[in-house]
Structures are given as structure tokens and as C-alpha cells.
């Protein structure tokens, strides 16, 4: 349905999108995940024909977006990061305008009523957009994308700035849309893509670092590696006991103190669950664990975990993984290695400054 080949976008000397290739099948919901400034919005803007890539090819349902922009744009409904609303129009006027603009052929009244019903804005159709709440504005933006019943729907950060209840509603809506349309959505929240998407494409610094089915990513992410643990006992001895355990990569006593309990931050090896072992080790020595808190994974952790996990899968299955485009392994490894090194460097710098401080 959507095919992106070797897409590059430079802003002057700044490379926003660096040789991205992926494709989306008809009826798929694909999540585009990445930290801020990773190139998500740029990619989406190129997909919808708002911007043009520096080089590379984008085609929607076989139609090249540069060769026949109008034909390709007809197939796409797009909700940009900031919904493009005319604040002085009423919702009805706005949707009618979108209908005219897209040169829609469907019966006007029924189609608009249906769209309003789907996004639940029927009761505000006569109101001026300026006076609507943020959640309703977002929904009007989604309604606009749905007008004309396009085959492909693209959402750029659809749940940003919404309250938790609205977020859940929008996610449910997207999942419903996925039944009849091809959907791409971008976000920097992992839970969001996990909840909604069939497939996740992770992008960082303009490059694709992972392209996996959601279940694989979820599996990789389940094994949380970093914990804050609160243990009663002499801090030096506890720390050395923790460090001597196998599977622990990093441990550190935090300044926090609660009676005779200290808080330690520990980081386990990839794919190793150290919690049980930690409990028994501490119990043996008579130190009570009074708190254990999993720390959220940063996107960087997820990249590393996912890349690591997929390499593991490959060895175990000893057959090609489900990844769509081959020849990316080397790149992924490279990126992962760079990230690990970067982390190590940061840590080294932090340690160095600490030592200096002590002196």
C-alpha cells in the first residue's frame, strides 16, 4: 500500500531523514516510534506530499507521490501534529470545506453525518471551532482526515495534549479505523503503539533502528532491566553483595535514606530477571528488602533491547526473522553499539566528575 524507498531529506546541511526504506501492507496499523526530533514528522510530511524528499521514492498504492501528487493525495487522510483547523468556522462548515477540497463524490449529508458519528462530534457540529476544547478540536481534526473515506490514514502524534480518558478514546477509535483502512501513526510513547499497532517501526536520528511486529517488541520490553530497590542494612556491604551477584551490570547506592534502609539503583544484564535472586541473596544475610520499583525504560533502552532481542531470536530460530527488509542487521548492530558506547562514556564522565568532587 505504502512504499518508501531510500528516502533522504536534508535541511541544508542538517539531515532529518537518512535513507529510510519500509513498506506498509494494506489494512495494517503501523506505529512510528521515536524520540523528539527523530524525523517522524518529516517522514509523514513527505508521505503526504506536504514536503518533498531530497532523494528517494514514495509511492501510495502504486502511485508515485511526485509523479502524480493529486492522485496520491486523494488516497490519503492526514492529521498533522497541530490539527489544521480554521478557528472561525463551525464544525459543519469546516467539514463541508474539507469535503469540497477533497473533491469527494460520496453523498454529502450522509457521509459527513457518518464521520461525525465515528469520532463522536455530532453534538458540536453547529459550534464554532475556536470555542471547542482541545480534545474536541483533535477529534474535528481526525474527522477532517476521515472525510472522503481515504484508503490510507496518517496521524502525527494524535494523542498529544489530551487527557487520559480522551487518549483511550482516540486509541480505541484508531483501532476501529484499522479494520477498514491502512493507518500510520507516529508517537514518542511506547505504550501507545503497543496498545494500538500491529507493527512498530522505531526511528532515531533519521534512521530506522528496528522494524518489528508489536508482540516481539512487547516481549523484549517486558524484561525490565533497571530497578530502584530499598534494602535495610549497611550500605557498603549491601552494595558489594549486590555487585557480586551474577547478571548485575551496574549497581549504585543512592543518597536517599529511610531509617536504616538505603536505596540502590541496579541494572541487570539483558534478558535476565534478577529480582528473585536478589530477594534470596538479601534474605540469607538478614537484610530486608522493603521496596522494589521498576524504572521505566527510556527509548534508548528499548532500541538496544529490541535490537539485541531480534539478534537472539535469529540465533535461536536459525531462520530469517520476520523483519521486512534484509541487510539492515549490520546497521542496527552498529547503531546499538554506538549507543552502548555512548552510555558507557557518559557514565565514565559522570564517575570522573564524582571523583574530582571528592578530591
Amino acid at each position: 500500500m505504502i512504499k518508501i524507498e531510500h528516502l533522504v531529506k536534508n535541511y541544508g546541511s542538517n539531515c532529518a531523514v537518512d535513507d529510510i526504506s519500509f513498506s506498509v501492507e494494506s489494512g495494517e496499523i503501523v506505529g512510528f516510534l521515536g524520540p523528539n526530533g527523530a524525523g517522524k514528522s518529516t517522514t509523514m510530511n513527505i508521505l503526504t506530499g506536504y514536503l518533498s524528499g531530497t532523494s528517494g521514492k514514495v509511492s501510495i498504492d502504486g502511485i508515485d507521490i511526485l509523479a502524480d501528487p493529486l492522485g496520491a493525495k486523494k488516497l490519503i487522510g492526514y492529521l498533522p501534529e497541530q490539527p489544521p483547523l480554521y478557528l472561525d468556522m463551525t464544525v459543519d462548515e469546516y467539514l463541508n470545506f474539507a469535503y469540497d477540497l477533497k473533491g469527494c463524490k460520496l453523498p454529502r449529508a450522509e457521509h459527513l453525518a457518518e464521520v461525525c458519528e465515528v469520532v463522536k462530534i455530532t453534538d458540536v457540529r453547529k459550534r464554532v471551532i475556536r470555542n471547542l476544547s482541545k480534545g474536541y478540536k483533535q477529534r474535528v481534526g481526525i474527522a477532517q482526515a476521515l472525510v472522503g473515506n481515504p484508503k490510507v490514514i496518517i496521524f502525527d502524534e494524535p494523542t498529544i495534549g489530551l487527557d487520559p480518558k480522551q487518549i483511550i478514546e482516540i486509541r480505541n477509535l484508531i483501532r476501529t479505523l484499522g479494520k477498514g483502512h491502512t493507518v500510520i501513526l507516529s508517537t514518542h510513547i511506547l505504550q501507545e503503539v503497543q496498545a494500538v499497532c500491529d507493527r512498530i517501526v522505531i526511528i532515531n536520528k533519521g534512521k530506522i533502528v528496528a522494524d518489528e511486529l508489536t508482540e516481539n517488541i512487547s516481549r523484549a520490553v517486558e524484561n525490565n532491566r533497571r530497578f530502584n530497590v530499598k534494602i535495610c542494612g549497611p550500605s557498603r556491604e549491601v552494595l558489594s553483595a549486590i555487585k557480586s551477584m551474577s547478571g548485575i551490570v551496574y549497581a549504585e547506592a543512592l543518597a536517599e535514606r529511610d531509617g536504616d534502609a538505603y536505596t540502590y539503583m541496579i541494572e541487570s544484564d539483558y534478558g535476565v530477571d534478577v529480582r528473585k535472586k536478589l530477594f534470596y541473596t538479601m534474605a540469607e544475610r538478614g537484610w530486608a528488602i522493603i521496596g522494589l520499583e521498576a524504572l521505566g525504560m527510556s527509548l534508548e533502552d528499548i532500541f538496544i533491547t529490541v535490537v539485541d532481542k531480534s539478534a537472539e531470536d535469529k540465533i535461536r530460530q536459525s531462520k530469517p526473522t520476520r523483519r521486512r527488509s534484509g541487510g539492515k542487521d549490520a546497521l542496527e548492530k552498529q547503531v546499538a553499539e554506538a549507543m552502548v558506547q555512548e552510555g558507557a562514556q557518559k557514565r565514565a564522565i559522570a564517575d570522573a566528575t564524582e571523583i574530582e568532587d571528592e578530591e
Partner: protein
Amino acid sequence: MLAIYKKEMRSYFINPIGYVFAGVFFIISALLCCYTTIVSSSYDTSTYFMLMIFAFVILIPLLTMRLFAEERKLRTEQLLMTAPVSITSMVMGKFLAALTLFGSSLLVSCINFIPIYAFASIERGSESYNTTHIGPVTGQVIGCLVGILLIGAAFIAIGTFISALTENQLAAAVITISVILGMVLLSFLNTLIDNYVIRFVIDWFSVLSRFNTFSYGLFDFSALLYYLSLTFVFLFLTVRVYEKRRWG
């Protein structure tokens, strides 16, 4: 294109800007018409039209300042640019909407001539002989109207182009005012210069000097071509601005 045209027309009248434009247009045209003809007891309308061109310096930017600047600020241009509409038809839709409002205001302001014609017919009735023409020359009035419409179209195209360059409406308005003012004042520069060659060149560029032929009641094709090509060039540049932004 029709969708954008309709939307622009509607937004002129949802916002106060359309009413402000029409109101100020009618007031200025009525006052100018009154003072240049009835008060100064003259049937010659060419001064009126000449002064109207100066009024456009303020009036046209009101029409054009928000055309693209507002879209860009509200990010609604993303909707237009990702819709199956070409950039050319987007620009034309907006330009034609502004031109329609301008043209219809101009048409309505023609009621200013009714009292002049009425005076003329009374005066004609009281005269016993019909050898001289009394009253405004209708051919000249129509020629001036066509000329002024063409000048308006050229100014609107300039304003449209400037609006596409910025996302600040006020900046767009101020720049448009100064550009149009400069173009209008260019012909006054002529009186200060002795060199014939320079005068000829300035005369060639001047908006007003071409209008003179219209005010004699002559229909000048080279002037028509001049105004139309001015309009075309600036609309073309507006399209290029948007093309360029896509690739930027």
C-alpha cells in the same frame, strides 16, 4: 479551486475584515467622488479615479494581508497542501476571492455617479440648445472603471505574493502598503528628473502613467497587457514560493 474560493469568500464575511474593507471603500469613494465632482462643480471623473488609486494603497492590503499569512500561522496550509489540489489552483482561488470582493465593491461604488448624471440631466433640460455635451463622458467612466479594475488586480497579486512570504499579517500589510505606495509615487519622481532616458524607463514601469490613457477615454491594449502581466508575474511568484517551500 472552487472550494478554496468559496472558503475565502465566506471567511471575508465571517471575519470583520470584509465588512471593514467594503465600508471604508464606500466611504472613501463617496467622499472623493463628492469632492472632485459636485463640490468642485465639474463633470470630469478622471481626478476621482486617480485619487481612488491612492486609496487602494490602504484598501488592498486589508484584502490580501491574511490570505496566506494566516494559513501559515494556523498551520492550515498543511491541509491545503496535502489535499488533492494543485498549488496553482490554491493561489488562484484565493486571488479570485479577493478580486471578487474588490470588483463588487467597485461596482457598488458606481452609485456615486447617479447624482452626477442626475445633475447633468437637469442642466441639460434647462439648456435650450444641444450642441455641447453636458455631463460626464460615459465612455471615459467605463474606460476608467476597467483600468482601475486592472490596477486593483495587479495590486492584489502583489499583496498575495507578499502575504505568502510571511506568517505575520501586520508585516504583510505594512510591506504591501509600502510597495504599492512606491509604485504609485514612481510617476511623481518623473517630474524631478531631467534625463529623458531615465524618465522614459520610469514612465514605463509606472502604474499611473499607463492609467492616463484610460482617463482620456482611450482603450490602450499595451496598458491592458502591462497590468495583466504584472498580475500574472506576481501570482506566478506566489506559486513558486510554495513550490520552493516544499523542497526547502
